[in-house]
Every structure is written in structure tokens, then in C-alpha cells.
């Protein structure tokens, strides 16, 4: 056992902890889980208020973090917007069937018609293959 007297006058006695410290404790686990959930934020030392707007000056790391978060959020919004646009246009095409696919000879064929033709061609080819196989 070692006695340590700190400047405050409070006596700290260095010793082996009782057994109960080593036992698993669900309440303690819960506490640290909660602490890790809410208490991992950045330390912001310099906060200035200008009018009703709060201007926050942070450490370099925190600034980078905020910047990164903003860039990521912007990129995510852009991506979401692009996806939404694409899905809207394809939906219109499917619904109205109005889009026209240009053929090599310059003639236009409705997308739905072209799809039917493709499917038909595919089925004929498959049928021919099967026929050959049957003959073997």
C-alpha cells in the first residue's frame, strides 16, 4: 500500500481495488454506451455571437470536419436530385410511350414497338437454337 498526499490535502491511498470492480456490470455498460452516444462531439473553444446569428470558430480539425460534412451533404443532395430526375424521365417514357428511338436508316420507331421487336427476335433465335439441339 502506498500513500500519496496531493497538494489539495486530500489523502489518496494507492491500493488494489475490491473484487466488485472486476465483475461485469450491465448498468456500467449502459452508462458508457450512453456516454459514447452523446458525448463524442468536438470541443469548440471560441464562440462569438453576432446579432441573432451565432458564429462558431472552431479548431482546425473541427473546421475540416464541418467542411467535410457540408461537402458530403451537398454531394449527397446532388446525387439524390440526379437519381430523382432520371427516375422521373424514365417513368414518363414508360407511361406515355412517346419516346422515339432513331434507327440507323433515320426512321423513327416507338420505343415500345422496338422493345416488342427485340423480344420477338430474341424468342425466334432461342427457338432456332432449341430446334438445332433437338436435331442433334
Amino acid at each position, binding site marked *: 500500500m502506498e500513500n500519496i498526499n*496531493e497538494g489539495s490535502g486530500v489523502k489518496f*491511498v494507492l491500493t488494489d481495488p475490491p473484487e466488485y470492480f472486476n465483475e461485469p456490470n450491465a448498468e456500467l455498460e449502459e452508462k458508457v454506451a450512453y456516454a459514447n452516444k452523446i*458525448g463524442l462531439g*468536438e*470541443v469548440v473553444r471560441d464562440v462569438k455571437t453576432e446579432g441573432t446569428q451565432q458564429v462558431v470558430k472552431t479548431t482546425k480539425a473541427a473546421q475540416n470536419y464541418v467542411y467535410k460534412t457540408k461537402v458530403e451533404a451537398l454531394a449527397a443532395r446532388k446525387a439524390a436530385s440526379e437519381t430523382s430526375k432520371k427516375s422521373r424521365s424514365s417513368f414518363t417514357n414508360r407511361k406515355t410511350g412517346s419516346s422515339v428511338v432513331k434507327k440507323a436508316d433515320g426512321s423513327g420507331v416507338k420505343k415500345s414497338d422496338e422493345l416488342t421487336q427485340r423480344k420477338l427476335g430474341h424468342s425466334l433465335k432461342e427457338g432456332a437454337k432449341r430446334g438445332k439441339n433437338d436435331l442433334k
Partner: protein
Amino acid sequence: MEQNSYEVKVSQDRQQYWFVSSGKNGDITKVVTMQTMKRAGRFNLALADEINGKLDYKSKTDNGDLDYVFATISEIVIYFTKFFPASEIFITGNTPVKTRLYQMKVSNNLEWINNEFEVFGMTDESGNGDFTPFKMGINYKGILVTRK
């Protein structure tokens, strides 16, 4: 801190502390654990009572010696941060009442604490909240203490 405090026993790694609170309900062993958190250098201060050989983190002692207990916890924070000067101590209660009580104790001793420590508060419980310099009159969800 001006108030008297209890003698404290400390483990070799300086992360576990225990002392005996003497009050109207008798002698109760109080236990303070500095739990490492996911953020490097940050520790969660967990306070418990030893009841029948088990640690109870939700008990409400009401032993009539609150000032002594808080003075002792303050001494533990001073002691711990002498060994780990770059550490940040996170303090929150497991109930809003306890968190308010911790906040009140910090508010009442802010001038004294500010001599050696920086104190920050966090109001956002969602997990995205930053710690800003502690101000009186704000309802914080957690407090962070670090040596100057």
C-alpha cells in the same frame, strides 16, 4: 475547493476510486470509475454506490453529505488529470435530475474550477452536439472538463 472531502482509495491504473460517505444513513462506499470512451483521451466519469458487494449506478443515497461527496469527486478529477493532463472528463447523469445537479455544482464553483480547468457544456443529445464553453443558465445534457 474549500469544502472538506473524504480520504480516497485509488487503483494502480488510477481509473478506479472509492471512498466512504458518512451521513444520516450510515456509511456508504461511493465508487468513481473513469471509463475510457470511443474518443481518444476522453473519459466518462461514472459514479456508483457499493451495495452488498455489487456496484449500483442508479441508486439514490441521500446521505446528507452531498457537498462532501462532490468535493471528493472534484479532488478525484484533479488527481486524475494530474496523471493524465491531456484527458477530457465527460460528466452526465443517468437521469435529467442528476445531470442538473452536476451542472448546478459546476455553476456554484465555476470561478474556482476555471482557475485550473476549462469547462464545456453540450445541449444536443442526438450525438451531433459540440461542446461549447460552459455558461450558467443553460440546460446542458453533458459537461466536459479538461485541464488548462
